[in-house]
């Protein structure tokens, strides 16, 4: 197949994808359960991962995932197609995250008061314990940040998204996002040092 032929096939495939995506968005706007299920199956892992990293609590993360997909048919009316559907889902999660962050913090405080932590089995218990300790420490440090800085840090540092994409998700200028990220990292470093983890 020549390069021209290959290009035409690729363009045709892209056009088909766009058409399918448009149709899916239309079905979502009609709140078709099958369409929501389709989107859930394709993107729930990404949304759940973000929710868990942002909230640091599995139960609150599940609640946030639930809220994102239930509100999707209403929210998708604002979807202009200028970003990927997954990015749009993450932005819905960001918009709904505020009270889930507070719920996760309360839950964490309660669990820590009772000393209740799950410790899954691992082939290298020592390494696993260190990893868990660091993750929990960072999550507790994240609790001290304002929600905007917390979102910026999770999107850019933990999820490794570009500042452009992260800015698109939170609906803020890129420069603002970078400022939030700078302050977040500064505070987190200080918090980790204060905790004395070496």
């Amino acid at each position, binding site marked *: 197949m020549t390069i021209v032929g290959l290009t035409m096939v690729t363009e045709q495939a892209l056009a088909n994808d766009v058409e399918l995506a448009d149709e899916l968005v239309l079905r979502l706007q009609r*709140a078709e*359960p099958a369409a*929501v*299920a389709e989107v*859930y*199956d394709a993107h*729930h*892992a990404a949304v*759940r*991962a973000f929710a*868990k*990293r942002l909230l*640091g609590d*599995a139960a609150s993360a*599940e609640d946030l*995932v*639930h809220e994102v*997909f*239930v509100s999707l*048919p209403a929210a998708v009316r604002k979807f202009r197609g200028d970003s990927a559907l997954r990015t749009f889902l993450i932005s819905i999660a960001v918009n709904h995250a505020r009270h889930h962050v507070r719920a996760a913090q309360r839950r964490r405080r309660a669990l820590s008061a009772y000393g209740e932590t799950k410790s*899954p089995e691992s082939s290298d218990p020592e390494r696993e314990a*260190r*990893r*868990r300790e*660091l*993750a929990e*420490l*960072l*999550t507790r440090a994240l609790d001290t940040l304002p929600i905007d800085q917390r979102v910026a840090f999770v999107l850019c*540092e*933990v*999820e490794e998204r570009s500042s452009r994409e992260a800015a698109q998700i939170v609906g803020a200028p890129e420069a603002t996002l970078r400022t939030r990220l700078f302050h977040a*990292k500064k505070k*987190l*470093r200080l918090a*980790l*040092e204060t905790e004395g*983890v*070496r």
Partner: protein
Amino acid sequence: MSKDLLAEAIRALRDSEQTSEFEARATRTRVLTGLHQTRVRRRTRLAFLLPLAASFVAVSAWGAASGQARLVLDKLERFVGVTPSTTIGARVPAPRRLAAPPVLSAPSPEPAGLAPSQKAEPLPATPTAVPAASSVRVTSSASSSSGRAERADPTLALYRVAHAAHFVDRDPARALAAWDAYLAAAPSGAFAPEARYNRALSLVRLGRKQEARNALEPFANGAYGGYRRAEASALLEHIEP
């Protein structure tokens, strides 16, 4: 060092997620159940609201077509205590009929050339007020319904007196006084536009030309929509300034 520590913590947080397939499926079920319940709630709301909305539209249309809406609005205004606007263009009269109004065919009260196509206005008559003129037909049902209307609006009696003076007795001076009395009592009453037009005719007959012009101009200018517009314009052309 702290930078390395932060990077290590970030990696730890990134790697710490353990997605449970069971949780994912449970949330999927919750989402779909939630959507289903939302749809059911929306349908239930529609099932209640649509018939209500349809009934409201139907009743409103009937009220507007039969003229009952105006009566109800007037009653409401009186009940609430709102003073109706007395400006001429405040209300554009809509085609209306009182409940089964009696048919009147009074002789044309205008001199030829002054009133191109004047017809008697609808009169909410009662048997006692109906003159013995053979041209007036009043049915018993009409009289009972107009009686009800008069009980609802006492100013209709004033209108009836003015109507008799204008169309039956053909006494312009008395008619003018009677129209003024009606308009003073009901400046935006059900028959205010008719009363204003007939008052203008009385002024024409009395030779009070400037006042007649002032009274006819709003009709010719369309302040009452198309009501008597052509007649008023024709009259204004015939009245010398």
